[in-house]
Structure formats: structure tokens, C-alpha cells
């Protein structure tokens, strides 16, 4: 990451402890981190802020992570979209490809793998 402003990362999870753990993990990665505890808040932030990548939980009340990322693709097509879930088996691979989702990260995640996946997603 050269000069210029740091990339902005939007984290979405209805479990706030996941959000704070993710923030801790990524604290030293040099991102500007936004955190949303639900899809509605995430969509508001997407409208208001320049977001380069979204990492969203899948199973959330009101709207699934896949639906959120689909909506995000319409608002900010350039932003990299990633899903993090405790039940990766339940996500049909075909939909991931169709929605252009760059990474499916399982919970619990491996810190190094998560960081690597984010770096790769933002480079593309």
C-alpha cells in the first residue's frame, strides 16, 4: 500500500464481539475500519463513506450476508465483497461466483489467512 489514504474496510456482523475481535486482528494492517452491527447500518455507511472492501457475516436478522453483498454490489460495484460465516457449508458455491464474492472465510478464522485474503481482495 503506497502513499495516499488507507483503504477503507467495512465489517458487518450482528455479533459485536466478532466485530471487536476482527478490529483487533486487523488493527495493525493499516486499514481505515468501519464496523456495522447489521445490514441496515451497513447500507447507510455504504452510502455515506467511500468503501473499498466489505467483509460481512452471513446469518443476520432481516437480511442475509449474501443479500447485503448483492445490494452493496449495486451501490459500490468496485468494492471487494467477502463473506465470513460459521457455516460455510450452507452457502451454495454457485451464488458466491454469481455475486463475484472474492473470499469465503470460515469462523473461527485463521488470522494470517484472513489478512492474506483481505490484501489479495484489495489488490485486484
Amino acid at each position, binding site marked *: 500500500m503506497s502513499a495516499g489514504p488507507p483503504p477503507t474496510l467495512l465489517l458487518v456482523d450482528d455479533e459485536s464481539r*466478532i466485530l471487536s475481535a476482527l478490529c483487533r486482528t486487523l488493527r495493525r494492517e493499516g486499514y481505515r475500519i468501519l464496523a456495522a452491527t447489521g445490514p441496515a447500518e451497513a447500507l447507510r455507511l455504504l452510502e455515506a463513506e467511500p468503501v473499498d472492501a466489505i467483509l460481512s457475516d452471513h446469518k443476520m436478522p432481516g437480511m442475509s450476508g449474501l443479500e447485503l453483498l448483492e445490494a452493496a454490489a449495486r451501490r459500490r460495484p468496485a468494492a471487494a465483497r467477502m463473506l465470513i460465516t460459521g457455516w460455510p457449508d450452507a452457502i451454495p458455491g454457485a451464488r458466491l461466483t454469481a455475486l463475484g464474492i472474492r473470499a469465503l472465510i470460515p469462523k*473461527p478464522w485463521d488470522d494470517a489467512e484472513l489478512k492474506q485474503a483481505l490484501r489479495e481482495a484489495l489488490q485486484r
Partner: protein
Amino acid sequence: MAVALEPGPVRIVVAEPPPGCEGGRLATVDALRRLGGGVRIEVVHDARACIELAGAADLVVVDRDLGSEGRAILTALRGAGPPAVVVTPEATADAALDTFRAGAADCVTASADYGEVLPAVALEQIRAFRAASARRAVRERIESLERLHAAIIDRFPAALAVLDAEGRIVTVNPEFARAFLGAAPPGAGAAGRALEEVLPADLLASADLVELAARARAGGGHPPRIARTQHGGVARAFDARAERLDPQGRTLLVLADVSEREQLKQLQRQVLQTEKMASIGQLAAGVAHEINNPMGFIHANLAQMEEYLGDVQRVYRAARELGERAAADAAPGVRAAAERLSQLATELDADSVLRDFAQAIRESQEGSERIRHIVQDLRAFSHRDDGQVVPADLNRCLDATAHIVWTMMKHSVVLRKEYAPLPPLPCHPMQLEQVFMNLIVNAYQAIEQRVRRDGGTGEIVLRTALARDGVVVSVSDDGVGIPAEHAERIFDPFFTTKDVGVGTGLGLATSFDIVRRHGGTLRARNRPEGGTTFEVFLPLAGPARRGGCEGTAGSRA
């Protein structure tokens, strides 16, 4: 002169000419009356009436003067019915002979002492008749009982064998012959032989029937045992009991065929197991998901805490270093602060606290790693339909699996392979390799347990065989075996006998389910010589749900 004849009243029929005719009629009846009040005398005047009453009588007295009627009576009673005594007027030998030929039991002359002789003769005849009747009744009763006995034993729907005091066969029933003696005629050849010579070896061994019989012979009781045999290619189960029949030590061995009941029980167990699997599969998937969320932040936070602690330790070390230098040469105020720092560090035992902190994090990470492993197993358990069905060589699958785990066990285990050439079997090879892995690792752990107890080494035998409509893969070990109280539960999810952290209790449950999804069966049995054999049967038709063989040889093998 009372008659002592029991039981029942004595009945005598007197046949004589009707009143008015010549003859000593009154004399005959009078003479018989001397036998006492217990004697009932009926007087008739023709053959028909006499024969009619004779059936219930003990004696018939025929007056010779009755002529042809008298002769008809003798003819009718000859060989059946009560004895007939003939009273003749003349005492010639010819006349007596004549009456004997006609069928009379005795002949009395109406002479002067006739009143004495007739009752004596009558009494003797009645006694003899009654004794003979009694003997005949006893004989008939015995014969009837014997017939009943034989009919019961012949038709008894279980195999029966009577053994003598030495345990040799005295006799067997037709069911026994049919079940165990094959085409031999009923019972032929079994008499005089020992059970070992007649019954299939696996049947004898499965319930230790020789011991069972010996125990009964010695008068000991026992609960019935289930004996099993594969003799003749058909699996059969028998309920085996033995009872001592008499003080001489003759014993009855009863083998009742309960194959159907046992098959039903087996089927029930499988259905139950399958249902249990399905519901636990659903539960597992849900639980795995729920656990993964908190596990997500616990896992990440622990990693972060470790990193933070490293940072804190670096700051702490720098502070202590600063403190030591300040204590040596700084201004008094700074020196005092440095001493406080040193004092505080000593008081709180800060060095070991920080070390223990790191240790606590590492141990928690280990725990979270273990939970992650369990959840992974659970997910594997609930989600196993991935991948295509492809034809695979099970000998190669088995080899590949054995190769992976071999390094861990080669010091204490000898591996023997008895492979039969197998046709390619449509299956999910990765899943079956997981099954083989579970079975081999279990075999190894059973051996380890025994070796820890008794020392020595163990042997694992991997065997494959082609059955009529499928492939049988078996993994045998000479380890500790499965205790009877665990036999019912070994395929239950979360059932484990291993140490905490060694097994999740999902290995066999997962294996059972994988094999079931392949349309096969997984069974365990203890070997008579010690240890256990797990047997996987896989149908050549492949997993049924996807319509059998889906891929072809070229597609993905």
C-alpha cells in the same frame, strides 16, 4: 362269602330259559346270590338281551338249557367281553368239551354241590377278568402316553437332543436332524456321538454349548444363551438351553431357532441408529454454526492477546532495565521511583505472572483448537454429500489410508494385508478412506491399550473379499476388544472410551453413516481369540440414492 372286588359293583348277567320252562333257574340265581349284596344279577332269556348287557358285565352265566340261544351268546362273547360260564345238567366230559369249544371260560355241572361250586367258579372268573381288564387299561394308557410323547417330540418346533451322563447324544428329534444333520434320515448317526461331532463349530463356539450342557448335567442353572452359525451360508441364531432330566445326569439340549427374531432386532437397531444419525446430523449442523460464532472471537482474541502480551512484555523489560539503571546512577527522586518499581515487581512476582499469563493464553488456545476440531468433525458428520460417485479400487484406498497412519503405529504393530482382487466399486473414495482411517486408528488404539497392560506387540489384518453382490473390507486387531456393555453403543455419536482430547466419539458414528449412505453395512464383533473385527460391506451397485454408478471409468477416477 362276601366278594372283595374293587372298584365298582359286580354285575353278572344270567341267561336262562324263560319261567315255566324246565331247568334249575332258581338254583342258579340263588347260588350266585350267595356272593353277597354287592353283586347285581340281571336275568335275561334270549341271546340279544344278554349280549346287550354283557358289555358292562363282569360275568355271563349261560344255562345249557337255553340251547341255540346259549350258543349264540358264547359265539358273540368269544375273544371279547366278559367270561362266560356254562351250567350243564349232565356231567359228561363230552358236554364240557363242547362248551369249551363254543367259547366258554368254564363249565359247571348242576350237581348236588352246585350251590357251592358256581359261586366259587364265578368269583374266580370275575377276578381274572378284572385283573386282565386292569392290565389292559394300564397297557393302553402307557401306549397312549408314549404315542403322545413321541408326537410332541416329533412335532416340537425346536431342535432337541438328549445327552447321556458322558455328554454323548442318546437321541435327537426330527427338527434337530433337519437343522443340523442335513440329508441324513431323522436321528440316524447322531446317537453315541459327541455334540462337537454333530453341531457346526461356530455354533458350538458362539455360546459354548459343550460347557452349557456340562453345567446343566452338573445340576447348575443358567440363563439361555444365543448361539449363532453361518453354517451352510445362512446366518442363523438359536436360543440355547440345557436342562438335567434325571439324577443319572441325562440332559436335554434345546436349540430354538430365533433367526427371524434376531434379524428383526438387528433391523430395529439399524433403523434406530439411522434415525439417531439423521436427527443428530441436523442438531450437529446447527450446534456447529452456533459454536462457531463465539469460537470466532475467542480464537481471534486469544491470538491478539498473545500478540499484545508480547508487546507488554517488551515494555515491561524496557521499564525494568530503565529501573535498574536509574537505581544505580539517577537522582534520588528517580532512584526512589526505580526502587518502588523493583519492589512492586517483586511483590507481585511480575516476572512469573507474565510467564504464567503467556502459559494461560497458550493453554486456552489449545482448548479453542480442540473445540474447533470437534466442530469440524461435527460438520463433516452432518454434511457429507459432497463429491461425485466414481469407481474406485478399494484395495488402493485401503493401502493409501494405511500408508498415512503407518508411521504412527509401526513400532508396536505388524500390518498384514490379505487382499482379494476387486472390481472397481462406485463410491465416494475420500469418504471411504475416512472410514478405513477411523477403523485402522481404532484398531491401533485397541492394541495400544492391550500393549500398555500386557506388553508385547499387536497385529492388524486388513482383508478384502468379493462377496456375491458386494465387497467386504475388514479390519481386525488383537487389541482389548469391545466390552459387552459397550457393544450396543459404539456407533453412537459422542460415545468414546478414549482419554479426554483423544477422541470426539464421532469416528465410528461418522463411519457408520458413510457406509450406510453407500448402501452398505458396518459391523463389529469380538474375535474368539481376542481383539475385534470391523467389517464393512459395500454393495457393488454403489450408493443407492444417486442411482448407483453415476460416474464412468473415465470421468474422474
